């Protein structure tokens, strides 16, 4: 039987696979083939999307989106490997945009909303892309590396005046 690594390499170009660690496969790919790769892996039985995350590479002006997949049930008859699959892809940081994968994995919804709110990545095809956690609007999304928290604290919280007590009229 073919190993999972070879199966993916046969079907997809532009993938770099690293299976150095036990029970873990890192797949680096370009942004066009992420959705088809996720679709393929879901059909293979890796039907649990554990996480969608985002990493800000500010020097390279790129965001890295991370998808972690695993299988709920380990199917030994079909020689399915018991492993976590970590899919990484890079997107541009300017006007960051990516395809939503809600049609494939429904539980991606809160993750994508979170990334939209904290990193400012626009997910095309997401039905409810609106703020999830934050109460106020920030000019730069706060998890971006170029968001200066200390400057924000000085501008925003330090400018709120201390309560001055009104003295009683005698």
């Amino acid at each position, binding site marked *: 039987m073919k190993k999972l690594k070879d199966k993916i390499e046969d079907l997809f170009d532009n993938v770099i696979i690293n299976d150095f660690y036990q029970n873990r496969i890192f797949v680096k790919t370009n942004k066009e083939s992420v959705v088809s790769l996720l679709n393929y892996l879901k059909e293979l039985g890796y039907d649990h999307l554990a996480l969608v995350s985002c990493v800000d590479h500010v020097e390279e002006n790129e965001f890295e989106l991370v998808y972690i997949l695993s299988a709920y049930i380990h199917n030994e008859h079909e020689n399915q490997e018991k492993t976590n699959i970590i899919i990484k892809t890079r997107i541009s940081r300017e006007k960051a945009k990516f395809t939503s994968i809600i049609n494939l994995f429904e539980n991606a919804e809160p993750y994508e909303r979170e990334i939209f709110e904290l990193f400012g990545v626009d997910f095309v095809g997401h039905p409810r892309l609106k703020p999830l956690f934050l*109460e106020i609007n920030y000019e730069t999304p706060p998890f971006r590396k170029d968001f200066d928290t200390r400057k924000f604290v000085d501008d925003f919280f330090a400018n709120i005046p*201390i*309560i001055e007590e009104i003295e009683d009229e005698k």
Partner: protein
Amino acid sequence: MDRNQIGKWLRSPQKMSNKYSLHAVYFCTGCGIIEIPPSITTRWDAERFGIIPAPNPRQANLFLITGYVSLKTLKAIIRTYEQMLEPKYTVGFGSCPINGGMYWDSYNTIKKLDKYIPIDGWIAGCMPRPEAIFVAVTHLWTLIEKDMATGYIKYRKNYKQYRANQEKIYGSLDWPPLYK
């Protein structure tokens, strides 16, 4: 009853009963709430000091703010505080409500809580031990006895300033002002 205190009871029964029946709102924020279950149950037994957790803010008069206050929690804190009946006392618990603590440069955490609601006393430390709660409570007794725990009167008097500060954070609040 302590015989020495009979005079005090006769002079100001209301003050004495406020003092010995502090009902704390069971409001959890931040990590300090982990100190509350041991202090209200058998290990430290807060009922010795007349403190008992109240199920809702309308039956409570002690508000322990037990940790960092994020912008979302502040909204809930203001609403809870405004629902409590007078006289009401607030105690900031831990170093985060005092000046932000370890979240001093966080984008989403309030730095000085007494800009938004009045605080009668602070407990410093990260984390304060349950004993520190009782030290604070005995201090609060003294303050109540000497008419110094007047946070709720301050709130009523300077409500415009408090409301302005609250609105500065959120832009607009979705409930009407408590006082005119």
